[in-house]
């Protein structure tokens, strides 16, 4: 990216001026909204978000900004089903009609920024505040490439081990907090054997993103990786660690619902919420839906950090470092989006609303929000303080995602990998085609090598 982006309308002076002028806006952090010359642009500002209510809340904040500063604009959220992200990405960017703002998880963000499709936003980071992040995360986790920040954090969302404690107690199993992989396997087995019509454990095994993420967490716990960021991203997927993780999935498989081989996000939640499984890997959504549809299951379910790997002791979760990023090309609303996003990011009220919109899926990224008493003013916090806390804070030490490959540096190939469901396909080789894990790992490594070769230009 050689293009200059020094023309952000908010220079320091106007910012301070704005601060002084508008002392209102009670709930917002700085007690102000940055000033912005009234925009006369009209139209719909397209914003991509995940399925779920929070994207809508984020956009509602932006619309509030628009009412004051750009009355002709309307921000509109387009929810992109996870499995459709890559198709959407390709068609919209190739059609030169990208949205003006994207809320996306880090693997995709890293791919886009390495391809030069995103706008650097360091100027915004300065205004948001560099030292606001909750302990345990860094700006890099959302998207930093060659020294520039490209992504503004929206939230983080770890996937954890959801456990039906009523079943655990009934069967006299240990406290899941203390488990290692063997304990998890044992618990899954025990439940499957003792509880008719109930699977012990559930994760996604279909050819989709969900499986990629679920497996990545296991892989990382075992100490494995896809690429070696220290060595020009050489493929290291055909390692014993990969084989070990694959073996673990294979051992768990008999205690999962039969249909798990085609499960994606939806079905894993379904399985838990309808009581077909006692344990599952998932983000906070499961609890949100259980609270709506199945109160008893909601009450009995708690979330834990993943079972430890017996040797490494790691209990990595897949954490979507969900962030806002701005397409650099063919984007007619760059200034407006920046200002509106800044408005949302600096409004305590809106950030808390954002987190509250889907408890406990949407974890706050800023310390001031995480500590705010208003955040805790939610029925979830009252009924499950430990679980919510695990999602929001205590899981952070175990965060990982393929984008940063164990937090060792951004991986621009990660998005390509997940777009093609390479991990999921590797898993499927084992659970559907009964391939030996060693061979599956080799197959996966070959696929990854092809991706690396194809995109070697990104690695610089």
């Amino acid at each position, binding site marked *: 990216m050689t293009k200059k982006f020094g023309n952000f309308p908010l220079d320091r002076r106007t910012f301070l001026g704005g601060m002084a002028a508008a002392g209102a806006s009670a709930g917002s952090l700085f007690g102000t909204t940055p000033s912005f010359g009234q925009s006369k642009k009209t139209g*719909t500002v*397209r914003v991509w978000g*995940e*399925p*779920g*209510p*929070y*994207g*809508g*809340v984020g*956009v*509602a904040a932006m619309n509030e900004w628009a009412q004051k500063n750009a009355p002709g604009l309307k921000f*509109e*959220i*387009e*929810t992109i*089903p*996870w499995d*459709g992200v890559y*198709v959407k990405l390709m*068609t*919209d960017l*190739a*059609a*030169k*009609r990208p949205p003006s703002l994207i809320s996306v998880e880090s693997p995709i963000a890293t791919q886009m920024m390495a391809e030069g499709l995103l706008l650097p936003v360091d100027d915004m980071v300065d205004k948001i505040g560099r030292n606001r992040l909750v302990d345990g995360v860094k700006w890099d986790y959302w998207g930093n490439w060659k020294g520039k920040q490209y992504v503004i954090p929206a939230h983080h969302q770890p996937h954890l081990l959801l456990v039906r404690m009523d079943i655990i107690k009934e069967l006299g199993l240990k406290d899941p907090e203390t488990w290692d992989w063997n304990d998890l396997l044992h618990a899954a087995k025990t439940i499957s054997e003792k509880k008719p019509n109930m699977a012990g454990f559930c994760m996604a095994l279909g050819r989709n993103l969900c499986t990629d993420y679920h497996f990545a967490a296991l892989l990382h716990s075992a100490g494995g990786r896809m690429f070696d960021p220290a060595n020009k991203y050489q493929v290291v997927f055909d390692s014993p660690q990969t084989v070990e993780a694959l073996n673990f999935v294979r051992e768990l498989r008999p205690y999962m619902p039969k249909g798990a081989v085609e499960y994606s*996000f*939806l079905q894993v*939640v379904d399985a838990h919420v309808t009581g077909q499984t006692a344990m599952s890997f998932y983000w906070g*959504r*499961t609890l*949100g*839906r259980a*609270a*709506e549809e199945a109160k008893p299951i909601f009450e009995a379910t708690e979330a834990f950090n993943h079972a430890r790997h017996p040797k490494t002791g790691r209990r990595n979760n897949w954490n979507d470092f969900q962030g806002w990023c701005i397409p650099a090309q063919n984007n007619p609303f760059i200034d407006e989006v920046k200002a509106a996003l800044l408005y949302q990011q600096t409004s305590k009220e809106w950030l808390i*609303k954002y987190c*509250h*919109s*889907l*408890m406990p899926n949407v974890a706050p990224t800023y310390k001031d929000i995480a500590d705010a008493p208003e955040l805790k003013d*939610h*029925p*979830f916090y009252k009924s499950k303080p430990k679980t919510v806390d695990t999602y929001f804070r205590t899981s952070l030490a175990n965060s990982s995602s393929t984008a940063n490959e164990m937090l060792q540096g951004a991986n621009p190939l990660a998005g390509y990998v997940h777009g093609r469901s390479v991990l999921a396909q590797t898993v499927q080789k084992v659970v559907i085609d009964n391939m030996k894990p060693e061979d599956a790992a080799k197959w996966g490594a070959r696929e990854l090598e092809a991706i690396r070769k194809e995109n070697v230009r990104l690695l610089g």
Partner: protein
Amino acid sequence: MNSASTLWKTVKNAMLYLILCVVTFLICFPLIWALSTSLKPKSEIFATPPTLIPHNLTLENYEALLTGRQQYYQAQGAPQNTGTTPAQFFTRWFINSVIVTLGSTLISIAVSTLAAYSLTRFRYWGRSAVPYFSLLGYMVPSIIFVFPLFLMMVRLDLTDSLWSLILGYVCITLPFCMWLMWAFMRSIPIEIEEAALIDGASRYQVFRQIVLPSALPGIIAASIFAMIVSWNDYLFGRVFINSIDNLTLTVGVMLFFEGTHVDWGLLMAASVLMTVPMAILFMALQRHLVAGFGAGAVKG
């Protein structure tokens, strides 16, 4: 006829009706079940045993779709303002689908009718190659067309516009409209037109007053097929359209199938509403449909 054989005939007919009813039920069951689900309240959708005829009939799913009312993520007390939901766009998508379906059908039919008339009534170089060409064209699956056309739409700056779909659907419906109209035009005797020419009509009058009315059954048959193809398309809509406002029904409805929550009642109501226009068309024009099949096997 003696009474034994009359009895046998009655029994045979009764058996035939029985078989027919069973087969019809089995074939229609998916649609019946979709209709039934769409009329159930949330609490009954997952009831065991499932109920074929809903105990509590409700139109709430249809109401939600047609008024765009938000249906989920309402937990923990007051409903939250969570921005747009797919249901909100349903009527919009419906209108989009109607526009692109009618638009592309109109163009395909107009172009192919004129061309078929020209091919069967005038002599010039290459005229016998056109039907062959159309035949080939209508065997080419849309997956081959879609990306080149997409890149073309990008160049023409037509992506995300309903025009891109209208033109795209012309591309997949024109070949078989051409084929069908050509087959049909060939069967219209040329003498009728000559009689009109001698009676004093101009070529255009002949075309409008004599040929078009005679070709009407063919035009109707071709239109139905063109409409079915356009209305049912998923691929072009998926690739060509970027913003949620401009989606068509088929692609839009898949957005209900999102994330971690599927509202089956809503989805089935949407399915029913998507099927209704084609069903009405089908019932009204069924005999023309059969005529169309006669003129040449038709795409599907």
